[in-house]
């Protein structure tokens, strides 16, 4: 369980995290999603006491992290930035971290096996590939057999096999009743792993929704192809209806169902060649959510018809 309340972090004039409040519950994989620089890593660093909040609280399993008697038993973390001495072997790295909590060499070998690093356990970490380094980071996170697992961009550097492995691992951890909190800037990755999403932008909470609700709530229209599109726009325009042209005579109509459009066009005698409901992808739903919080936009090519059209 992770509870963040009114969490704020300022670095000089820059506000990295701005009054963030959310709860991450056990038993599901929760995604922490937002564009780069949205404050995800800073929030995670505050949760494990690496950064001190300017104001607000960040609690893990009911307490501020540093107050736990066995911090590594409460939460296992993988941070985005490298946190290993390259001259040390993977096994010694885990032994050193585990020793603080009296975690045995047996458990160290167990997690090495779990992440598939047994054969390179005694090799210096400096020679590891990005993917192997990531697996070592995950081994560190699992070392204390923690109730909560928090991973910052866990799929970074993993090959497709590794990505599949970590998805299965994370779902398994959640199924065991653990709290699983993973960050990503890629919606597509979250769509495959997470059931719940905390979406942030510019340090603020944008959405706290289930993946299913997010898809359902995404406003998407119906694509209509008609030889008399101008007449059709005039016919359909009204309160709560938004019509835009997507080119090639195709209109995107938001706020009316396919049935509505078909029946009204039939009554007015306007022919329709094509009528396609648009299903929003998670990626689009996410883009829509974060539209206001990303700093730079690319230009859009759709022309909007105003109400006056």
């Amino acid at each position, binding site marked *: 369980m992770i509870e963040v309340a009114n969490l704020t972090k300022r670095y000089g004039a820059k506000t990295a995290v701005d009054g963030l409040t959310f709860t991450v519950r056990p038993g599901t994989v929760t995604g922490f999603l937002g564009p780069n620089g949205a404050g995800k890593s800073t929030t995670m660093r505050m949760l494990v006491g*690496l950064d001190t909040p300017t104001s607000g609280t960040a609690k893990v399993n009911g307490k501020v992290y540093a107050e736990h008697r*066995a911090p590594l038993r409460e939460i296992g*973390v993988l941070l985005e930035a490298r946190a290993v001495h390259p*001259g*040390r072997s993977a096994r*010694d790295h885990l032994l*050193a971290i585990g020793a*603080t909590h009296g975690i*045995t060499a047996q458990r160290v070998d167990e997690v090495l096996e779990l992440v598939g690093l047994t054969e390179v356990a005694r090799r210096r970490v400096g020679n590891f590939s990005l993917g192997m380094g990531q697996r070592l980071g995950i081994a560190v996170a699992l070392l204390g057999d923690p109730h909560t697992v928090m991973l910052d961009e866990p799929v970074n550097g993993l090959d497709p096999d590794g990505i599949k492995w970590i998805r*299965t691992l994370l779902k398994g951890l959640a199924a065991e009743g653990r709290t699983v909190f993973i960050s990503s800037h890629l919606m597509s990755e979250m769509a495959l792993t997470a059931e719940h999403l905390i979406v942030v932008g510019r340090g603020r909470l944008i959405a706290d929704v289930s993946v299913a609700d997010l898809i359902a709530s995404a406003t998407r229209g119906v694509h209509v192809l008609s030889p008399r599109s101008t007449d059709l726009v005039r016919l359909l325009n009204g309160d709560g209806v938004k019509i835009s042209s997507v080119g090639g005579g195709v209109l995107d109509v938001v706020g009316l169902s396919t049935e509505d459009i078909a029946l009204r066009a039939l009554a007015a005698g306007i022919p329709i060649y094509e009528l396609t409901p648009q299903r929003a992808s998670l990626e689009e739903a996410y883009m829509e959510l974060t539209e206001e919080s990303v700093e730079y936009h690319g230009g859009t090519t759709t022309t909007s018809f105003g109400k006056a059209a």
Partner: protein
Amino acid sequence: MSTTTMERPVARTAVDEPEPRLRFTGVLRSEWVKLRSVRSSAMTLLGAAVAMLSAGLVFASTRTSGGNGPGPRDLVDPTAISLAGVNIAQLIIGVLGVMIVSSEYSTGMIRSTLTGVPSRLPVLAAKVSVVIGTVFPAMLLTALTAFLGGQAIMGGADLPTAALGDPGVLKAVIGSAAALTGIAVIGVALGSILRSTAGALSTLFGLVFLAPGLGQLLLPTSWRDDVLKFLPSNAGGSFTSVVPPADGLGTTAGVLVFAAWVVVPLIAAAVLLRGRDA
């Protein structure tokens, strides 16, 4: 890399083991594992020992050939001749102390360390303990060997020698090991305060090696000696030699001043470690 079995359990399999818990003894063991598992620790420790031994033995041999070769200021004191390597050893042992902390910052390891020990201060305490526990015995053994070897060389040439039982000799031998340990601990403190290897090393070397010489050159003669005797290397001179230098501090005063040079930076390091974002 072996292929991973997906069905493998994540939970600990050994249920009879005690529940993991953060303890200071664990933090101590952790720091010991860290120290022994990087090559640079053994290299610097060995380097300091070799430097100290060879300097002492070379200076002793130079005396036997009747030459006016390199040697400490006080060429008539046989103990000082055999322990002359302390100065060079300081330089190397200082690197060990600094690197124990600064390498954690340069590699990012500090994030793993402080995540495991979020109360933070036990980490600094454990690092200091491990440094003392490693450097002091190693340097005591080295100082003893340098002393005995140097005396044997000079004795063989019928030059005056000192014995461990002579007044002040044991103090000088143990004091040399203690001074080297102190320099290593100052290194730990500076590494922790400055969080950079280069910054901490230059500060340490400036303080220990450059400050006495620069002070000689730049300070007015009227109060130069009153200030310079308080520098760590000069304060250390009061207990690393059989007879404290005439213009320096007495043994007790020297020990206290040197201890302050160790403790004050450590306190600053502790305060900063607690307060700063890692």
